[in-house]
């Protein structure tokens, strides 16, 4: 789980305030009133003023991203070696949120740093791009360099911490995020990352407490609510989970993972019609298969949840179909194998149930103690003529 690439400084969790005010950026002119369409600004205007206006938008509400891109390209047409323009262009591309622009965003940020290695915000934004790409060692490299340039900077500590978590070092992640919070106790992003590290460390109650603190700050970040909802579900707090996940879905109505999680919460509470509605909403748009890990994960999760829902409804054939689909997408999906084991268990086909349960356990999804006990009992008293 990770924060998505954010559209700009402004919508990152409290990122803008410090990074965007670093001394390296102080030389750019202050922002004045901006026209509705920045690209329409007079081309005879000094480049610094034009750049300042774009910067104000990107560091503010980021309402004119397309126009910002056009204006920055025009500026770079005048001066292709303007590091700040490359950095802002990289930021604007990222804000547009289009997958096909991720590489270009990275390229612009790298070019900015090549032209001006001490342009610290560019390093931070580049690290965020790497984070979105799952290139955590690159994040680590960039943030370690940035911290040499700006020791103790909370945002850098937080992003470095998140990279460490992804690199399998949750303890180090928690430590770095605690350092960030020591410098700025209101820094929600560090608290969120700390909570994720705590979840990885098995400290669920502390994680929930931190996530609740972040949501109390009304941070407009669906991932926070998604994480909290999932944590509640794992803690068997289905009602609280429902509330959190409904928030997440409201904030991100196109996020399949949020709908799937909410469906899980509804199912847990026996609200099967609502669960069905959510799973229907979670269906990815279009028929094209995207060859990404994220797509595969969502598709597998969606099918697992459909399987669980159908199992709960007693529709064993439909449930099996759904679990098989999940396995077809991701053969090592433990939850899907667990689901198949449950179906076989219902059918008193203990041998197959045992095989699937063993596979599921090896993949980190063991049967509950009660189901395991039932299975073990069944294995000692095999049912004759079990239906498949």
């Amino acid at each position, binding site marked *: 789980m990770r924060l998505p690439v954010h559209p700009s400084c402004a919508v990152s969790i409290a990122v803008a305030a410090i990074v965007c005010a670093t001394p390296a950026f102080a030389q750019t002119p202050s922002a004045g009133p901006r026209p509705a369409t920045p690209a329409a600004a007079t081309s005879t205007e000094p480049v610094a003023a034009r750049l300042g206006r774009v910067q104000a938008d990107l560091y503010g509400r980021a309402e004119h991203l397309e126009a910002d891109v*056009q204006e920055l390209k025009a500026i770079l047409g005048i001066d292709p070696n303007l590091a700040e323009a490359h950095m802002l262009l990289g930021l604007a591309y990222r804000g547009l949120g289009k997958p096909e622009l991720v590489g270009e965003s990275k390229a612009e940020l790298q070019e900015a740093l090549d032209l001006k290695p001490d342009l610290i915000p560019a390093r931070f934004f580049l690290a965020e791009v790497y984070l979105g790409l799952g290139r955590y060692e690159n994040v680590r490299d960039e943030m370690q360099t940035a911290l040499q340039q700006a020791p103790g900077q909370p945002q850098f500590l937080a992003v470095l911490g998140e990279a460490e978590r992804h690199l399998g070092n949750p303890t180090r992640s928690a430590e770095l995020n605690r350092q960030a919070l020591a410098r700025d106790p209101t820094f929600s992003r560090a608290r969120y990352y700390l909570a994720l590290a705590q979840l990885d460390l098995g400290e669920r109650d502390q994680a929930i407490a931190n996530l609740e603190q972040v949501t109390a700050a009304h941070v407009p970040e669906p991932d926070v609510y998604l994480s909290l909802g999932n944590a509640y579900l794992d803690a068997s707090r289905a009602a609280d989970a429902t509330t959190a996940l409904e928030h997440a879905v409201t904030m991100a109505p196109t996020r399949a993972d949020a709908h799937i999680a909410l469906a899980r919460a509804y199912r847990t509470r026996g609200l099967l019609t609502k669960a069905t509605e959510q799973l229907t909403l979670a269906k990815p748009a279009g028929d094209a298969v995207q060859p990404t890990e994220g797509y595969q994960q969502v598709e597998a999760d969606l099918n697992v949840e459909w399987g669980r829902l159908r199992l709960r409804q007693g529709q064993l054939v439909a449930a099996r179909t759904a679990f098989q689909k999940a396995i077809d997408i991701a053969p090592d999906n433990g939850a899907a194998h667990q689901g198949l084991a449950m179906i076989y268990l219902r059918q008193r086909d203990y041998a197959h149930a045992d095989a699937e349960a063993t596979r599921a356990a090896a993949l980190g999804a063991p049967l509950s103690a009660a189901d395991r006990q039932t299975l073990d009992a069944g294995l000692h008293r095999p049912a004759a003529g079990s239906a498949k």
Partner: protein
Amino acid sequence: MTGRLSLVLVAAVLAPVALAGQRRGAAPASAPVFTDVTKAAGITFVHQSGATPDKYMYETFGSGVAWFDYDNDGYQDLYFVNGAAGAPNALYHNNHDGTFTDVTAKAGVAGIAGSAASKAYKTGVAVGDYDNDGFLDLYVTAFGANLLYHNNGNGTFTDVTAKAGVAGSATEWSTSAGFFDYDGDGDLDLYVDNYINFRRTDNPYCGFQKPGYRMYCSPTMFDGTADRLFRNNGNGTFTDVSRAAGIANPSGKGLGVVFCDVDADGRPDIYVANDQVRNFLYHNNGNGTFRDIAYGAGVGFDADGKPQAGMGVDCGDIDGDLKPDLFVTNFEDELDTLYKNQGGGLFADVSSTIGLRSSYLPLGFGTKLFDYDNDGDLDIYATNGHVVDNVALYRPSSSYDQKDLLYENIGGRFRDVSAQSGPAFQVKRVGRGLAVADFDNDGDLDVVISSVGRPPALLRNDAPPRHWLTLALHGTTSNRFGLGALVTVEAGGHRQAAEVTNVASYLSSNDIRLHIGLGAATSASRITIRWPSGKTQTLTNVAANQILNVKEP
């Protein structure tokens, strides 16, 4: 300085060659334009991709191919780069009768001798006479150390990489490369595209976690690497001036490179096609430095402002306005891009309105602008092939192997004539390198295409005959083969301008001679050559259908 030379003095008119263009009768409209003669020509080379289940990105990269007359016998020989580590490159000698003989062992250009070369995954090839001794030398790029082979002039080559200092980094992934004289000092410098910062030890799993579904990763996962510019010191060595010259942009993911003078200031500029990031146009400042003017010129992105996945590239005047336009092949779901030179340093992406729509679905690689039908304008050939060998699992409408595309230029617009151009265009291949030459000296340009993990295709041009001229330049003050010379040909009331260059396409190198289609004109009333040295030479009333050797005055 202007020189006017008598044809008697400067032209070696090859009588058999002059007649060759008239040898065939007028073909019916439905006759194949290109005929696959690979087997008949004795080409037995098979590319080795070295593909493994680990899906290292370079395995799908393919390798280049070069036409060059290594023994100065007047016929273009053929060099294939092989991919996998330890797989030998191949040099084929042109026997002048439509067949070739493998002379790799004698020539010593297999590219696998030495520990560094034996481990490298070989990619591209560049050709140029870097020491002005009159014999064309070879530069082979790789994911690993690159190689420079000096042509000894006796059918053998010597690896001079270390002495010359052009290996690049042993961890670098070099792609297309080319020789050109950027500083106008009369010797050829070397530009080397570099791709991504890739390590075998950092090979993320991409695609579904399901047997058979692992796929090659997107280059977006990796950082770019800076290209290199090696300045020729004139003594057999080079100096890496990339940084000082201003071409060392680390965000680049260069696959294709071409040199042409986009603003007619007499100096070669550099255009680099990058993969999934914007393209670069380095304007030659004339003082040893370059300035990337892609943003201002409008050649970094497509018409929608999006960066594309540029692969192959070429430069040439497609609309007869005497200004060089730029052409780039791109990924699937992207049009191949034609940037029309509007003058004043501005280009316009006219791809969607000029007849290139059929390029949208294929994934383009090697390409060349050339006048395949000798009607006096530049047509387009593009070879295609996907980069993901199991793409059909994810996108059933796509395929790894794909058909080539041939566009005929009709008054500055293009018509896809692939379906009418013979069986060669019904064959699907995993097209990568592509190079063009008149290998049989019959007055039309032939094509060779490399394919990942497969034999290449040698396609003989059998288009109905029209008139033509081929110019083989011989520099004296300028570099020995006249690379960078601007040639303007006036014939039949029509003017054409073209630069002498063998650098274009993807990983490949073309016939260094300049071929001009003259259509119905039986002679060129005037040929003007602006040599890289600045000298201008004019030839008048030059008969068509000959290979003209022109010496710099």
